[in-house]
C-alpha cells in the first residue's frame, strides 16, 4: 500500500460510528490500531469467501460469512454494513436468491467505503492528532473487490 494524495477522501458520516472508535482509542496497547489492522486483513477475505459461497450456491456458507462480516463490522463501528450483512444472513436463511443478490450488490461498495474510512482513521492514529483530516496513509484501491 502506498500514500496517494489523489485518492484521499473524507470519512463520510454514517459509515462509521466514530463514538465507538473513540472509546476504543482510549484503551491501552493501541487497541483501535490493532483492531483496524485486523479488520483490514480479515474483511476482504470474508467478502471474497462470501462471493465464493454465492458462486457455488452454498446458503450455509453465505449465512456463515455474512454473519462473520456482520459481527466484525459491528465491532469496528460499521453499523450500516453490519445491518446489510444481517439482511443477507436472513435472505440466505430464507433462500431468497433475489434478496441475496440485492444485498451483495450493496455490501460490496459499502465494504469499500468502510475500508477507506478505516484507513483514514488508521492514518490519523499513526500520524498523531495534528494529522490533516481526510488524508489517507494507506491505499485500499489496490485490493481486489471485483
Amino acid at each position, binding site marked *: 500500500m502506498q500514500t496517494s494524495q489523489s485518492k484521499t477522501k473524507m470519512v463520510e458520516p454514517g459509515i462509521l460510528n466514530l463514538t465507538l472508535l473513540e472509546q476504543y482509542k482510549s*484503551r*491501552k*496497547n493501541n*487497541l483501535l490500531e*490493532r*483492531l483496524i489492522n*485486523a*479488520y483490514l486483513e*480479515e474483511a476482504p477475505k470474508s467478502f471474497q469467501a462470501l462471493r465464493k459461497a454465492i458462486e457455488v450456491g452454498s446458503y450455509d456458507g453465505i449465512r*456463515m460469512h455474512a*454473519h*462473520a462480516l*456482520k*459481527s*466484525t463490522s*459491528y*465491532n*469496528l463501528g460499521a453499523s450500516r454494513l453490519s445491518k446489510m450483512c444481517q439482511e443477507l444472513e436472513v435472505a440466505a436463511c430464507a433462500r431468497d436468491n433475489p434478496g441475496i443478490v440485492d444485498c451483495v450488490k450493496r455490501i460490496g461498495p459499502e465494504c469499500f467505503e468502510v475500508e477507506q474510512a478505516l484507513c483514514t482513521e488508521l492514518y490519523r492514529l499513526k500520524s498523531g492528532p495534528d494529522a490533516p483530516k481526510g488524508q489517507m496513509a494507506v491505499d485500499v484501491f489496490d485490493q481486489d473487490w471485483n
Partner: protein
Amino acid sequence: MADKKLRILVIDDEVTQRMLVKDYLEDAGHVVRQADDGRRGLKMATSTGPDIILLDVMLPSIDGFELCRSLKQHPITANTPVILITASREGDVIARGLAAGADDFVTKPVDWEFLADRVSHVARKSVERSHLLHMVESRSAADDANGHADVGSHPRDEPGALALDELMRGADLQASHAVAQAAADIEALKSEYEQEFARLRAENERLVVMARNAVQMTQAAAEKSYAAEVAKLRAGLDVEASSLRGRMDAETSNLRTLMEAERRTASEREDADRAALAKRNAELKALREAFDAERRRFENEITSLRDRLAALPSPAAIEAPWSIVLRAMTWQASLASALTTRTKAALAAGRMEPARLADIDRTAETLATAIGNAKRFAHAMATAGECKPGSIRVAKLIAEIANQAKPIAAKARVDLRTHVASDVPAVIADEQRLRYAWICLIVNAIRYTPPGGRVTLEAVADRDGGIRLQVADTGVGMTAAKVEELNRTFDTPAVPLRAGEPAGLGVPIAAALARQMGGSVVFESKQGGGTRAGVVFPRTRCGVNIPETLAGFRLPMTASGAPELALPAE
C-alpha cells in the same frame, strides 16, 4: 471472589471479537487465552481446564451448542461455566443453550464495559454451586461411614464388659444421637440442595419463560407501537387531508377569480380589437379614396399627354436629319475637291514640300473621318425606322446607356458616373433616337476629358417643369464662341482641320434628333472648366411616374362594393 484472577478461554472465529474480549477481560485482571476454532477450543479447554469459557455460538467447524455439550460431558470441563456469545435474543436459542448446559448468555453487540462483571458473576455462582455440591457429597460420605460403624461387633464376654457396654450404649446413644443429628443435617442439606436445585430449575424455567415472554412482549409492544403509529399516521393524514381540502378550496376560489378576470380582460380586448378594426377600415377607406383620386389624376394626365402628343408638329415640319447628312456630304465633296487641287498643284510644281505634303495628308484624314461619321449616322437612321414616341423611364435608360459607355470610358481612363434626381418624370420620346442623340454627347464628353477626369450622366428636372438629360464632364471645356457655334445648326467647318480633330457632325445630328422629338440640345461650358451638354425636353414632353407601391394595386372589394373586411366572430 470478584478480585480473583480467572483463567478464561475465548473460543471465537472472529479476530476482532477475540481481541476485544481479551482486552476488556485482561484489563479487569484476568488471564485470557484464545481459540479461533471449535476443535482447537475443545482441545485447549480439556487440556488446560480454564475457570470459565466464553464460547461463540456460530463457529465454522463445530456448532457452539454441540461444543458446549461436549465440554459439559468431559470430566475436566464438566463443571467449568460456559458463557455462550450469541447474536440472537430469541427464546429458542436460549433454550438450546440451556439444554446444551450453558451457564449464561452474552448477546451481541456486547456491552464491553460490563463483560468482566458478568464473567465474574458467573464464575462466582459456579464456585458456590460447586461448594454446595462438595458439601453434599462430603455429608453423604460421612453418612456412609457411620452406617458401617453400626454394623460392627463388640466383645461382651470380657470383664468390665457391662460397664463398657454401658459406656458403649451411652456412646451408641450419643452416636445414635449424632447419627440422627447427622441424618437430620443430611436431610436438611438434601432438602436445601433439592430446594436449591428446584430453585435453579425454576430459575431456568423462569428464564425461558421470561425469554419467551420477552419475545411476546416485544411483538405485543411492536404491534401496539404499530397500532399507535397507524393511528398517528391516520390522524396526520386527516389533518393533511383537511389542510389539502382547505388549500384546494382556496385554489379553486383563486382560479375562479382569475378566470373571471381573464374573461373580463378578453371582453375588453375584443372591444379594443373591434375599435382597432373600425379604425383600420376607416384608414383603408381613406386610402381607397386617395387611390381613386390619384387614378383619376393619372387618367387626366394621360388624356392631357395624348392631347399634347397629338398637337406636336409633324416630323415633316422639322428639319430631317438626312438634310444634315446631305450637307455633310457636300462638305465632304468640297474637302475632296480641295484635296485634289492641292495634289495637282504639287504635281505641277514638280516637287512636294514636306509642309504641303502634311497639309494634304491632314485633309485626307479629315475627309476620311467625316465620311465615317456620316456613314455611321446614315446607318443609325436607316435602322431607327419611323419616329414612334413612347413613355421612357429615365433611370432605366441612363443605367443601360452607362453600361454601354463603360468600355469607352474605361479605355479613356475616365470615371463614368450616373445621377438621377428623385423628382424626374418619364419622357415621351422615341427611345432609339434619344439613345443615339445622347450617345453622341457622351462620346464627345469622354473624348474631351483627359485621363483621370470624370463624366456624369444626369437626369434632372428643368426649371420650367421639363427634363434635362445631360452629360457633365471635367474636360477641357470650350470658348463662348465655340459654344455659340455648336448651338447653331451644322455648317461646313473650315478647311483644313487639325489632324485628329473631329469633323463636328455628332452634335448637329444629336440636335436634329432632339428637335425631331420636340426637344433641343443645349451647351454650357467654360474653357478649362468642363462642359454640360444636354438634351432638354419641355414639360409637354414629360409623363407621370406611377409610384412602384401603387403599380398594380387593387383593393379587394365585395359584391356590394364595400371593402372585403370582416369583424372577428363573437
